[in-house]
């Protein structure tokens, strides 16, 4: 009887050890998402889940419900599970900065995606920030708008209304500044109103309704929104108000399928791509770091501008839109 018990004990120990050994083969990565109430955020999470599976890592994740304090608490919950690394898309740069200190103390590498925190990437356990250069994208979008206004009016002249992203986020600040940097060269191109739509479609509609009441037909040339969702909301308001002169005068950022479709249909003037595909770069960065390789502290991913104002732009945009349909892509 004692022999049988010993054999069983050994077997249990072996299976336990092999389970631990097996688990140790797959790194555990934690991911903290801002919120899951926006298609862009849902697509970002899906992308990370996809690349985690594809690259053979285990993933745990939660969301901060679009609240910095909640996200901080949720990050603490993730760190208590002792992951091999943390990926965070922070709600706000300053409010989520303590996460860097938490990771330093726990010895857990931190990668931020999309938005940065106040701390310098490449210091302590904050190994990398992976984003797209919001400032550069907004600058190119501003340049595109200036050139369009020149084609339209024969001079660099026009009035722009702006709908901003969530107040205080690094993306909002960069999209705000980059666009202004581009049009600063043209004194007769003016931003006549700016207000936050908090990134949501319904808020975009409300802000645009307000603009349409304040500015009669002929006084707005371009509507610039920091995200597609708000752009689509603004388009709804424009259509509902019968302000047809503004159809085809919206420029937005993100690059979701519905927005690209409005470019193809002529309802949007242009969309700058800021697709939420960070999963591959983030997980590969972590795997490289865990393998002892050096990683770039700041990584900027490429972007495209979709429009139909030139034959090349039209071909490129149509082809990309058809690819989205063919491959059932949202971004």
């Amino acid at each position, binding site marked *: 009887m004692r022999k049988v018990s010993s054999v069983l004990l050994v077997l249990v120990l072996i299976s336990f050890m092999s389970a631990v050994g097996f688990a140790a083969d797959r790194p555990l990565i934690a991911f903290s998402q801002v919120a899951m109430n926006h298609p862009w955020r849902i*697509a970002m999470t*899906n*992308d990370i*889940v*996809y690349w985690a*599976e*594809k690259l053979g890592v285990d993933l745990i994740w939660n969301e901060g419900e679009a609240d910095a304090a909640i996200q901080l608490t949720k990050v603490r919950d993730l760190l208590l599970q002792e992951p091999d690394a943390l990926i965070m898309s922070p709600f706000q740069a300053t409010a989520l900065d303590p996460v860097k200190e938490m990771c330093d103390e726990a010895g857990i590498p931190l990668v931020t995606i999309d938005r940065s925190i106040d701390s310098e990437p490449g210091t302590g356990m904050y190994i990398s920030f992976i984003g797209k250069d919001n400032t550069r994208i907004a600058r190119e979008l501003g340049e595109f708008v200036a050139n369009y206004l020149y084609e339209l009016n024969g001079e660099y002249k026009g009035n722009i209304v702006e709908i901003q992203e969530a107040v205080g986020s690094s993306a909002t600040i960069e999209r705000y500044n980059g666009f202004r940097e581009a049009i600063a060269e043209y004194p007769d191109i003016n931003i006549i109103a700016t207000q936050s739509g908090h990134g949501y479609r319904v808020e975009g509609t409300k802000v645009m309704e307000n603009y349409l009441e304040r500015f009669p037909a002929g006084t707005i040339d371009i509507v610039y929104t920091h995200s597609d969702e708000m752009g689509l909301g603004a388009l709804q308001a424009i259509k509902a108000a019968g302000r047809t002169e503004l159809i085809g005068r919206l420029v937005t950022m993100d690059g979701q*399928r519905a927005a690209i479709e409005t470019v193809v249909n002529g309802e949007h003037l242009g969309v700058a791509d800021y697709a939420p595909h960070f999963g591959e770069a983030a997980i590969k960065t972590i795997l490289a770091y865990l393998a002892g390789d050096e990683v770039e502290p700041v990584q900027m991913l490429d972007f495209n501008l979709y429009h139909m104002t030139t034959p090349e732009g039209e*071909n490129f945009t*149509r*082809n*990309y839109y*058809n*690819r989205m*349909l*063919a*491959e*059932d*892509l*949202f971004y």
Partner: protein
Amino acid sequence: MNTHFVKFSVIILFFALLCSPMSARVEASETEPEALTPLTDFGELRAEDMEANYYGLVVDWTRRLSLNNNLQVEVLYLDPRLVLASEVLAGTVAEDTFDDYVAEQAAAYAASTPFVIKLSHDTNIDRLNLGDWKVTLANDQGEEQVLTDYQGSEPQLRTSYSRGNFYQVDYDVSFPTSGYQFLDSSTKWMKLSFDNGRNVYEITWDFQPQVSAQQSNVFETVMKILITSVTVLLALGLIVTRPKVSVLNEWSRADR
């Protein structure tokens, strides 16, 4: 008063006659859908603009269907233009050998009809075996070919907007023919059926939507002509039956 009556009727007549043919013409051009037409004359193959057309052709020639137990099938008919577009994208078609390429394609389509069949399932890769199905290609001319020749990839993890993550196996398949093209200019439709012994699922490519669209345009035009004629007759009736000046004068005297 009488003059106003005539003027009013003439204005109605004028607008009715002016508007009806214009609106009929606008409607006809707006509602006319593009027909899905397979390329059957290889002499029409052109390499120009093919690079930009690739994904558009994929969208045009792809059909999707849910089979049993969450198994999904996506079928892409490899129209010769689509094959050419993919070759142009890959940079494997040269201008100086283009005639040879066209001749090769014509011979290939006379020998077999190619498709890509993609079987996908959210979790279970064991269900992605095309061999579990009897796949038959048929057309309106009564021809049928059963699939025997196919090559499948390894199951691959994919992601998409509407489905999230799933596993997929891509099969390159071709249905052998007897030295002639399965599709010709008179083919009205073709379909693929998937039979697992319990259920049969069908995917159809219809090549004649324009015929029904033309019929519906004919109906709209007839209705418009009818409505216009009635309006014209009413206007004429108003003019013919207008009260005479003497009667109007009598009425106005009586009113006073």
